[in-house]
């Protein structure tokens, strides 16, 4: 009897394992029980009915390069299977078992259909809607950001049959209409699948190469005090507001004991912050905007985080573009203040 109880408890532990893995790796973006967030609502009955386990498996494995969903290359096969089993436990649906045959059709004609019926949501060349999903209570145009159909992670996960099914039936509880609502024929659908498939190239998966330097750093030709003053002037020229300036140990030590060898100049542009938060709500990791001036054995340096390096942690192409601009802003300020 004790053995039977232990066996049942261990079975329960297996189920809990899938739930724990989901909580740890997926719930942050997809919400508990897949209600959605930054990530799509994978708990929708229509999603689960249209999605084979192979798609879920590949998606977890390869992610969506540049579209926030990371590649969970560190998870074992068992762990991925446990997560999928947990996802399936939310709703009782049939699991599609489509064969993997390619659909041979006319991609050029599919492009015409795409441009007429799909581009307004899924973007030119299948690049997807802008921004993330939920944006912490700010109104958004669509309940779900239209996926990027040209994303290599998506194309390496989805079969032609799955694509066909989604186009044919649409997806309930999302803005995705069915083919009949759009008056598309079966030939139109096949051509559309062929067009979407034409975006696919070879996908390289696994650990990312993070190659940007962590900081921007410049030696200053000026004194410590002059460099700090120059930073402030350069910040204002870039249309940022100065917020404050103090040492790293501010708040930790009494006023008289603060460091005399480093000063952090804080600045802000709230329009820029608001726009950046719409791209990715996690950008608080880049804040506050700040440049540090240090002096050490007569050497004065000014430095900041490198936004391009930090952006590499987020797997968000839109954010990468914003960080290119931020990198330029920081570089201009640093150069003006130190040269």
């Amino acid at each position: 009897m004790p053995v039977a109880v232990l066996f049942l408890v261990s079975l329960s532990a297996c189920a809990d394992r899938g739930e724990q893995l989901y909580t740890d790796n997926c719930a942050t973006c997809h919400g508990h029980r897949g209600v959605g967030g930054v990530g799509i609502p994978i708990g929708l009955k229509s999603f689960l009915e249209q999605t084979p386990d192979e798609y879920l498996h590949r998606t977890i494995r390869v992610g969506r390069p540049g579209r926030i969903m990371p590649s969970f290359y560190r998870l074992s096969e068992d762990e991925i299977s446990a997560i999928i089993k947990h996802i399936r436990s939310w709703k009782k649906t049939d699991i599609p078992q489509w064969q993997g045959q390619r659909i041979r059709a006319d991609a050029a004609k599919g492009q015409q259909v795409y441009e007429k019926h799909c581009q307004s949501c899924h973007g030119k060349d299948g690049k997807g809607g802008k921004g993330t999903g939920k944006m912490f209570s700010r109104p958004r145009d669509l309940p779900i950001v239209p996926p990027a159909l040209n994303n290599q992670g998506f194309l390496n996960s989805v079969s032609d049959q799955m694509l066909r099914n989604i186009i044919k039936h649409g997806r309930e509880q999302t803005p995705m209409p069915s083919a009949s609502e759009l008056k598309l024929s079966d030939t139109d659908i096949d051509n559309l699948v062929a067009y979407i498939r034409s975006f696919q190239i070879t996908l390289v998966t696994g650990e990312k190469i993070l190659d940007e330097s962590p900081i921007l750093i410049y030696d200053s030709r000026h004194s410590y005090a002059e460099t700090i003053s120059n930073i402030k002037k350069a910040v204002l020229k870039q249309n940022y507001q100065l917020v404050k300036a103090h040492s790293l140990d501010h708040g930790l030590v009494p006023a008289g004991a603060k460091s005399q060898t480093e000063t952090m100049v804080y600045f802000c542009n709230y329009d820029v912050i608001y726009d950046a938060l719409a791209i990715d709500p996690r950008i608080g990791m880049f804040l506050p905007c700040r440049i540090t001036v240090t002096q050490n054995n007569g050497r004065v340096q000014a430095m900041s985080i490198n936004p391009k390096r930090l952006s590499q942690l987020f797997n968000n192409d839109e954010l990468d573009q914003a960080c290119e601009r931020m990198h330029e802003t920081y570089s201009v300020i640093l150069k003006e203040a130190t040269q």
Partner: protein
Amino acid sequence: MKALIQVVSITLLLLLTPVSQAIITGELIMIRSEKAFPEAMRTLQDAIRSQGYVMMGVQPVDERLSKRGFKTDKYRIVFFGKTEQNKHLSDLYPELVPYLPLKIVIYAEADETLLVTADPAAFIDLYPHPGLRNVFRQWHEDMLRIMKTVQAE
């Protein structure tokens, strides 16, 4: 024989009991807490202090945006550190200062709360000084404990 079966069963049970994992994408640590923002914020600050850190400040991003007419929900950045450690690190490794002090971003999503921070273990590649490796590993462990405390029901 009965004792052997019991030992094997217990061993199997322990092996199959889920061990809570880090929520790490490789470079970021993120969690979703079912606590509403105010409670999550209190729990976060308590968890930070319980790991021996001092609260160094909270950046109220939401308040500053709201004052300028932007519509936003709760969004804060919590900064924390250890006095002596910060001084020691900034003296020896000034190039680390742009990433100090440690911080966690915490924001509301309806009646739940999301937290995100950079995984300090990722700093090992950014700053490959032998003297910093153990510091980053300790921060990594501390961050995981802090985040899991807020995530716990």
